[in-house]
C-alpha cells in the first residue's frame, strides 16, 4: 500500500538525461545501465521500488545561490533578495524513473561559516553531493575543494556522486563564461565530479541538472541493490508489496465497473 499520490507528470523520467559537458561527466552512456532497465521492467528494484529517498546535500560558499537553485527547481520561484539559510533546510521532490517511484531529499545547507558546524551534522548518508559556486566569483570556485573535503569526511567517497555546479550564469558574458568554464572543468575533473552551469534567475539548465542528478542517483541505487542481493531472489519483498498495491488498484478499478 502506498499513501503517496502519483507523481507530477513533469517529474516522470523515461530515459537518461544527458550530461552538459563530456569532459566532466560521471558517465557518458546514452541510456540507463541495461541491468537497471531490465530490473525496472521486471519490478526487481528491491527497496528502491518502495518509498526510496535518496539524500542529496547542496554545499558551497555563502550567497552562491544554493537555496535559489533548489527553489527554482522545487517551487519554480526566484527571490532576488538574499536571505541567509539558517543551519539547514530541505525539500522533498518525488519522481518516477522508468516507472519506479523515487524521491530526492534535497538538503540545503547554510554557506555561512558560523552555521558550518551545525550544517555539517547533516552531511552524513548523502548519496549525491552538489557543490555550488558562483560563475562570476573565482574565489567561490577555489573554495569548492574545501567544501568537498568537508562533505566527504562524513561519507564514503566511493559511494557518493559528485556534481560541481556553476550558478548565476546569466550574469557572465559568453567570454567570461568560457574562461570560468575552463577552470571549472579542470576542478571537476580533479574531484571526479560532473560539471553543470545553471541560472536560477532564468531557469537555464536547472531542470536538466536535477533530472540528471535524479537519474544517476536512481541508477546507482538500483545497481547497488542488485549488487547487494546478488544471487538471492531480488524483489521478493517488493513483489509482495507491489502485489499489495496491485490488489488494491484492481479493486478500486473494478468497483466503478460493477456499479456504474
Amino acid at each position, binding site marked *: *500500500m*502506498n*499513501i*503517496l*499520490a*502519483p507523481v507530477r507528470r513533469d517529474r516522470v523520467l523515461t530515459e537518461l538525461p544527458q550530461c552538459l559537458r563530456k569532459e566532466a561527466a560521471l558517465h557518458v552512456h546514452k541510456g540507463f545501465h541495461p541491468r537497471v532497465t531490465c530490473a525496472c521492467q521486471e519490478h526487481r528494484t528491491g*527497496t528502491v521500488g*518502495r*518509498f526510496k*529517498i535518496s*539524500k542529496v546535500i547542496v554545499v558551497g560558499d*555563502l*550567497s552562491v545561490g544554493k537555496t535559489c537553485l533548489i527553489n527554482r527547481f522545487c517551487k519554480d520561484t526566484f527571490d532576488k533578495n*538574499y536571505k*541567509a539559510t*539558517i*543551519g*539547514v*533546510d*530541505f525539500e*522533498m521532490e518525488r519522481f518516477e524513473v522508468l516507472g519506479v517511484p523515487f524521491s530526492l*531529499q534535497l538538503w540545503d545547507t547554510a554557506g*555561512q*561559516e*558560523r*552555521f558550518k*558546524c*551545525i550544517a555539517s*551534522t*547533516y552531511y*552524513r*548518508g548523502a548519496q549525491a553531493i552538489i557543490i555550488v559556486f*558562483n560563475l*562570476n*566569483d573565482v574565489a567561490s570556485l577555489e573554495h569548492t575543494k574545501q567544501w568537498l573535503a568537508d562533505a566527504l569526511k562524513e561519507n564514503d567517497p566511493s559511494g557518493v556522486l559528485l556534481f560541481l555546479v556553476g550558478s*548565476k550564469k546569466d*550574469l*557572465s*558574458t559568453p567570454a*567570461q563564461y568560457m574562461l570560468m568554464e575552463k577552470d571549472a572543468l579542470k576542478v571537476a575533473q580533479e574531484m571526479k565530479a560532473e560539471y553543470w552551469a545553471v541560472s536560477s534567475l532564468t531557469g537555464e539548465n536547472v531542470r536538466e541538472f536535477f533530472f540528471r542528478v535524479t537519474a544517476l542517483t536512481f541508477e546507482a541505487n538500483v545497481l547497488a541493490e542488485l549488487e547487494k542481493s546478488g544471487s538471492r531472489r531480488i524483489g521478493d519483498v517488493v513483489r509482495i508489496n507491489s502485489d499489495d498495491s496491485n490488489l488494491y488498484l484492481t479493486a*478500486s478499478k473494478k*468497483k*466503478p465497473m460493477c456499479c456504474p
Partner: protein
Amino acid sequence: MEPRRVGPGAHCWGPRVATGSGTAAELVYHLAGALGTELKELARRFGPEAAAGLVPLVVQALELLEKAAVGPAPDSLQVSAQQAELELRRLREENERLCRELRSGPQGECGPAGGGEAQGLSPRAANENAPSSEERAMLRQLKEVTDRQRDELRAHNRDLRQRSQETEALQEQLQRLLLVNAELRHKLAAVQSQLRAARDRESESERRREATLEPAPEQAQGQAAAPGCEQRQEPETAAAGTGAPGTPEDRADALPPPGRPPKVGQCGFSREEVEQILQERNELKANVFLLKEELAYFQRELLTDHRVPGLLLEAMKVAIRKQRKKIKAKMLGTPEEAESR
C-alpha cells in the same frame, strides 16, 4: 599693216601673258612694243619702203626672243592639264551633288509615300532636305536630353550606393555599440552581485560581532519555541516574545556580561538550541509533506468516487500510519526503521 602684224602678235601673246610665264616674257613684249612704235615712226618719216625690209627681220627676231623667254608654246601637255583641271572641278561638283542627294535620299524615300518617280533629282532632294534637317535637329535634341538623363541617373545611382554604404557602416557601428553596451551591463550586474555578496559578508560579520555582545531578543523566543512540553507550558512568554519583540527590559535581562570574547557559533542561541530548532522545523516539514501527500491521496480517492468499506478503511489507516512513521524516519535520518533504507 603694222598694227595688224603687231596686233595679231600682241593678241596671240595675250593668253600667254595670262598663263604667267614670268618677267622675261613681259620684257620681250615691252621691247616688241617699243620696236613697233620706232618702226612706225621710221615709216612715217621716210616712207613705208624705208622699213619694209626691216620689219620681217625684226618680227622674226622678236618671235625667236619670245620663244626663248616664254618657253615652248602651249602644247598638248598644258592643254590636257587644263582639261583635266576642268574635268576635276566638274567631277568634284558632281560628286558633291551626289553626296547631298545620297544623304537626303533615304530620308526622302519614306517621306513622300508613292512620290512620283518621274520627278527630277533636284526637286526631290529639295523636297526632302528640309524635313530631314528638322528631324535631325530634333533627334539631336532628343539625344542630348537622353544623354543628360542618363548622366543624371548615373549620378543618382552613385549617390544611392554611397548612401547605402554609409548606412551599412552606421549599422555596423550600432551593432558594435550594442555589444559593448550588453557587455557593460553584464559587467555592471556582476560587479553589483559581488558588491552585494561583500556587503552581506560585511553585515554578517557585523551581526556576529553584535550578537556576541548583545544576544538578540529571539533568544527568549527561541527558548520558548524549544521542542518538547516546555513549549506548551509557556505560550504566554512565546506570545509576548513575538508580540513585543525586543522590549528593552528583556534585552537588558538577557544581556551577557559585556566584554566577553566573541566566539564562533555563539549567535545569540547556543548551538544546541539552534540544532533543536532545526530538528523541530525538519520534523514539522516532514509532517507537512506527509500530510500533503495523504491529502492528495484521499482527494484522489474521493475524486474516483468510491467508498472504502469501514474495515478496510481502518486497516488502511493503520498501514498508512506505519508507513508514515517509516517515511518520516527516513526523511529525518532517525535510527528507527533504519532497515527499510
